[in-house]
């Protein structure tokens, strides 16, 4: 099937149409002290997916609020109870002088979170694919992500050892590993993203230590403070000093944000560009400029509406994602049969709890 308009993906939602969903979600989330947010997420996704066209028909989101809620409960029991014990147990241990044991249990908890964080990233993509239908067909994975969790740990650790130089390798190889285990219908995704195209952008991060040093010096120069045992005084009036400090800190954060944005743009371009499903090749064309516009648009929207605009961010991000997503090739509808992967029954519980995105 060839597409007539030149773009395989399209988004035709409007914020007017989405507003009633966003505002009623906000209302119900407030009056339920946040419990409605699982159903709110589901309603939002149902709308966004239904306004997303791929070739000749729309996507459909079939996830439910109940399964997200069950996932949340599961996390509460699986992680919450041990952590509750840990929280009070560690306090007691430290007070009683078993600092070593306390550090040991603390470290074990850290490793557990690290591992589950990897598993959660895998399962989030799996969950989203398994609840996304197109032409009555869904995606998924036969893998539970437990092995990926180990991979996630050791690759990230190895990536950090040589002064973080191998972090891009860790990220790209994990991306490939994850997507190579995903499928849609009967077809497996294939992904062979390379490190080289993102590495130069990553090197920009090495400016960060210099920026931090600048913060330190600027802080001392404007406020006064101890360097070693020397106390520095300043003659600037406190207001000027405070303003200068704020400008410097905001500036440096902005610069760090820009570097992160530039890297992320390159990363997604390479990651999605290397993705293939049977005879379909994907592409993601957002440039750093596009990301900047999205980012500053977000800030303007939220600040300009005194925070209310926050409820439209999910809409904006999805629209951004779909508008820049592209696919080439063809699909054989007869061969695109139903996925035989198992459907996970408990949403994105782990990921929800750890507050990380799926992509």
């Amino acid at each position, binding site marked *: 099937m060839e597409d007539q308009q030149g773009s395989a993906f399209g988004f035709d939602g409007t914020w007017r149409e989405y507003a009633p969903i966003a505002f009623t979600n906000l209302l119900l989330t407030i*009056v339920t002290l946040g419990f409605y947010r699982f159903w709110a997420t589901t309603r939002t996704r149902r709308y966004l997916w239904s306004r997303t066209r791929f070739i000749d028909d729309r996507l459909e989101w079939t996830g439910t609020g109940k399964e997200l809620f069950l996932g949340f409960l599961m996390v509460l029991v699986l992680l919450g109870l041990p952590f509750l014990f840990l929280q009070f147990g560690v306090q*007691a241990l*430290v007070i009683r*002088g078993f600092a070593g044991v306390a550090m040991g249990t603390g470290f074990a908890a850290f490793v557990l979170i690290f591992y589950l964080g990897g598993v959660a990233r895998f399962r989030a993509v799996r969950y989203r694919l398994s609840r996304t239908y197109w032409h009555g067909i869904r995606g998924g994975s036969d893998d539970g992500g437990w092995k990926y969790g180990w991979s996630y740990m050791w690759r990230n650790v190895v990536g950090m050892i040589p002064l973080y130089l191998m972090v891009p390798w860790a990220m790209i190889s994990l991306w490939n590993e994850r997507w190579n285990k995903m499928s849609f219908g009967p077809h497996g995704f294939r992904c062979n993203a390379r490190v080289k195209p993102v590495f130069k952008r990553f090197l920009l991060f090495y400016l960060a230590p210099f920026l931090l040093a600048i913060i330190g010096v600027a802080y001392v120069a404007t406020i006064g403070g101890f360097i070693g045992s020397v106390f520095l005084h300043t003659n600037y009036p406190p207001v000027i000093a405070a303003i200068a400090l704020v400008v410097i800190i905001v500036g440096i954060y902005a610069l760090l944000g820009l570097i992160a944005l530039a890297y992320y743009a390159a990363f997604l371009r390479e990651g999605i560009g290397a993705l293939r499903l049977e005879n379909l090749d994907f592409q993601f064309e957002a440039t750093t400029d596009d990301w900047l516009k999205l980012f500053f648009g977000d800030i303007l929207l939220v600040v300009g509406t005194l925070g209310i605009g926050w409820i439209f961010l999910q809409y904006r991000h999805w629209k951004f994602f779909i508008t820049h997503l592209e696919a080439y090739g063809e699909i054989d509808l007869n061969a695109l049969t139903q996925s035989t992967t198992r459907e996970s029954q408990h949403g994105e519980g782990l990921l929800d709890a750890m507050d990380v995105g799926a992509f």
Partner: protein
Amino acid sequence: MEAEVWHYDGRNANRWGARLAGDATSFRLIGGSWESGPYAWADLAALDLPGADAVFGLKEAPGWRIGLPQDAIPDGLAALLPRKVRYGGFIDRIGLWKASAVLASIAALAVFVGVSAPGWIAPVVPQSFEDNLGDAMVGDFGGRFCATPQGSAALKALTTRIDPDANARSIEVANIPMVNAVALPGRRIVIFDGLLQQAKSPDEVAGVLGHELGHVEHRDTMAALLRQLGLSVILGGMNGTAGSNINALLSLSYGREAEHEADLTAIAKMRAANISPLPTADFFRRMEPALPGKGAKRGRNKGERSDLEDEAQALNWLASHPSSASRYALFADAHDTRRTYAPALQPSEWRALRTMCASDKKVKPVGAFGL
């Protein structure tokens, strides 16, 4: 009845055109060269999708869909088709606004119960349970309690004076250079050595002790513990890292009202023990540079360097016990000019108490506190 629909069978991605033909309980789909069904109307579910088409799924058949233009639904068919689920659950049944009002009342009740529950529950928790819990959590404070014959005797004298009924199970001095004193679970009070060094007279220590005794008698520690427990359940229990928890326990927050009640207890106890509340008022003033009599004379000379350190030290105490002008005034006003107060300790006893940690050779050294 009949209608033209589009159809996905959920087995492959082909989009079929079909004729829906049915009676009162079920229907069949008839395509160009195929036929499927019968399907029960009751097994259909309406999807909440924007757009011109009404779309329906079938129970237990993932991906199975039929759709037809909203305005092409014959009247007879419309009655048999299920309604859309929009907000979910009972909200669709009773309507958004009614449901919001009901949910908001439930939420308000839940918040009220949640906020005040620790205060009701704490007094009901058996004291022996709290004592065991406190002993399990605190133990011997990692060997950091200071003891010397003279110092311990002085501490005993001060304890007997301010707490004659022995409401606290133990009052100890810990070899930690923070300006702090805490009431821990199990009716145990710990004064940090830093506070003794910072205090200018035993009366100030008596005031702080009286305040912590107030927390013990009102069971504020148990209430705060319950509140923290509730919070960690709500927040999923994974916001605290291991390192920050010791601080969380040391500065369990009791709330403004409980702090005020504890101050009133302290004043009552000092009156009963005939100890002047003025030094304690002065202590609060020193801990809070913004209060009158302190801020104005502060300079930037070399000699004043220790003041800066004092302020950093005071932050420990302020974090858990926000000082304020009203608090200072409360103690200052409690001073009765016609009365002759007796010092909380004799000078020799006060010296012994202040030097107790420094002269105790067995106590765990300062640096070993695992924060």
